């Protein structure tokens, strides 16, 4: 091909066009990101703003974007009238009691599905996936009856023990995919050295599974932290409640027969307070979190 002025200018304008196209794409991306960001952020902003208003401002006929005078006192007031601190501590405790169990048993099960061949394995795998399809209401009543036969109602057992018995189907699936993506060479090398399956799991695989395990931990934390239904059903005593359940004491319905003073501003403050730990967790764990999902190569 002859490089002459014509071709040079043609290629230059082509690359200029490409650059312009890329700039447009970049601008468009930014525009969309910012628009989505605004849509997602607006209600969050509203939550924070409402948490700093008085209930009269909230309930007045002209909704206020920004409080006239930020009621910082709403936050300590919230902690005074409800044992929010206690409830959040309870949530932490439940997570502390259940998450290690969930990770342990999910890893064990995933290991079994990924690394071993045995009769019935694939059938059990399908069954495990199938459990994701069962609507929770099918099992709810008998599970409740089972737990009260054990005397576990109004304790944390129904909320923690099930985690130790396999965790969730989703986490098992995630971890199984992840383990399958780790080449067996390392396993085989360890076997040569005389390592048993437990040592292989603990010393070879688990260190390599950090991103996936972080993902599982973050998802488990989120799930338990915001879980409303479980504690709602199983806990009766106020001092055992978790924050998610405690919120219902702040809704409008709770005010009907007393002083008529709504506590929505406190509800929003509580929502803000509750969201804080998980946001922090997500920020810290973000990189591992995404990596964990990537490397597990979600395919069905």
């Amino acid at each position, binding site marked *: 091909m002859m490089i002459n002025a014509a071709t040079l200018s043609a290629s230059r304008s082509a690359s200029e066009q490409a650059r312009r196209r890329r700039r447009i794409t970049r601008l468009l991306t930014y525009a969309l990101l910012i628009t989505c960001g605004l849509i997602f952020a607006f209600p969050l902003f509203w939550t924070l703003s409402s948490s700093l208003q008085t209930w009269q401002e909230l*309930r*007045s*006929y002209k909704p206020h974007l920004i409080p006239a005078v930020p009621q910082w006192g709403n936050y300590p007031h919230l902690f005074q009238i409800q044992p929010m601190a206690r409830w959040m501590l309870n949530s932490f405790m439940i997570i502390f009691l259940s998450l290690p169990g969930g990770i342990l048993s999910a890893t064990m099960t995933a290991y079994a599905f990924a690394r071993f061949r045995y009769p019935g394995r694939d059938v059990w795998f399908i069954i495990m996936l199938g459990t994701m399809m069962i609507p929770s209401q099918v099992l709810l009543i008998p599970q409740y009856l089972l737990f*009260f036969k054990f*005397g576990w109602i109004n304790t944390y057992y129904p909320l923690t023990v099930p985690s130790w018995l396999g965790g969730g189907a989703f986490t098992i699936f995630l971890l199984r995919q992840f383990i399958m993506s780790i080449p067996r060479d390392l396993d085989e090398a360890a076997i040569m050295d005389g390592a048993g399956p437990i040592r292989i799991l603990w010393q070879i695989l688990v260190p390599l599974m950090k991103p996936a395990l972080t993902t599982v931990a973050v998802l488990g934390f989120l799930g338990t932290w915001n879980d409303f239904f479980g504690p*709602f059903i199983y806990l009766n*005593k106020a001092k055992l409640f978790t924050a998610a359940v405690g919120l219902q*004491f702040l809704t409008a319905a709770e005010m009907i*027969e*007393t002083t008529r003073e709504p506590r929505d501003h406190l509800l929003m403050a509580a929502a803000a307070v509750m969201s804080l730990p998980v946001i922090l967790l997500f920020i810290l764990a973000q990189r591992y979190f995404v990596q964990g999902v990537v490397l597990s190569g979600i395919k069905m």
Partner: protein
Amino acid sequence: MASKLSRRELIKRGSIAATGVLLSACQPKVVEKVVEVTREVEKVVEKEKVVKETVEVEKVVEKEKVVKETVVVDAQAQKKAAMKAEMSWAFRADIEQPWPTERADSFTDMYPDVHIEQVVLARSDMYPKEYAMHAAGTLPDICFFYHSHFQQWRAIENGVVMPVDEFANNDQLDLNEWFPVFIDMGMYKGKLYGLPSWGWSGWDCITINSLLLEEAGIEAPEPTSHATSMDTITEWIFKFYDPPKGDGPAERFGISIGIGDISFETLCRAFNGYFISPDGTKCLIGEDENANQAVKWWYDLAVTEKVTPVAGELAAGEYVAWAEGKLAMFMTGSLGVINAERTTRDPQVCKLGNIMFPTRKDGKIPSQMRGGHWNISAASKNGAVAWEFIKHLSGKDGTIGFNLVANQGALVRPDALPYLKGKSPVYNWFEQNLMDGMIIHAPANSRGSELGDAIAQNATRWFDRRDPMPFEEGMMMFHDAVQKVLDLPMG
């Protein structure tokens, strides 16, 4: 009679007889005494190898007499000694915390061997929780299955709560300490199942912004007067309605009537009819002329003339809307009026006024009393102590505290009213309603939850003014839905 009775049979018959003694005595206070009797009976039976049933019975009767005598003599001392228990007490979360603690502590001061654990239940799931606890055998000794929430009959029919007549008779409790209607509420098939916990005369009135009447030069009716006719009320609704300026809701709505079984029943009663028949089995809307007239009135206001707000249209609720002059009046009961008084803020905009419904043709006051009782769990092992505690809660001090400290509407005792009248003159207005009010006609099958859902969902359709439905059609739809619920078997 030739068969030789085995020893096991003898003991079995002996213990059955002894249980009979137990039940007839029915005084948990004397548990110790009864146990002794049991042993004696068994011994007697064993000595005599040949047993004729008649002989057994005679012996038992004799022993029984002895027991009763001892009880009478030692009643007081026994009572104090027997006041020893670890009990739990379930109540709703919105009963503010100082009151329950004060009641529990003051009771322990009187009887130091009694400890009461507080079990707080959120409004949203208090009954499912209580039923689940009953099924698990952990229902607190003192619990609640409110009449006005339609839970009482299910609880009684399913053996969840125990009758208190024995206790009341033994104490010779004067049930006239409470307004009769509230005692009646706790009765079912001739037995009483608790003592009044809360109660108010609702709904029975309309709270009005009397400033509007003043501005229009109309003389406001006396708060206790039942002379204002429905026609006059209707006139005022239209007079004070202020249409919207452009798009959006009205500047001022004429009246707000919340959808629920209470409002339907009270309105039907105001028009000389009933919503649910007294025996709780028939829906009279769609069948009874008076009831139909009542709902037609409401329909016209809501759908045809649009002078009532749609659900959710009053963002801040009825009370705030009324206090800010956006709502001329709203239907409520005595407790609502007291709450309205607390809500008024700017006297230039709103002043508390009250309109009672007009006396019916049969002389009664249109109302539907609301209330509930403190119950004792049927499985409680501390029945007697629980009874003492219930009297403590429902007595004069307890009731006054319930009103003043817990901010509840417990207008159940005449002797509590003087203290409350000092708090607000509004309590004066409702004294007659408390004495003469009309009781609820609860569904005979106790299916309150289904009834509430059927009413809420069908009435919102019927009164939907964005997509109106012809009155007759809506009424039959409503009637059929409610009748279906009333036809269900016992819950």
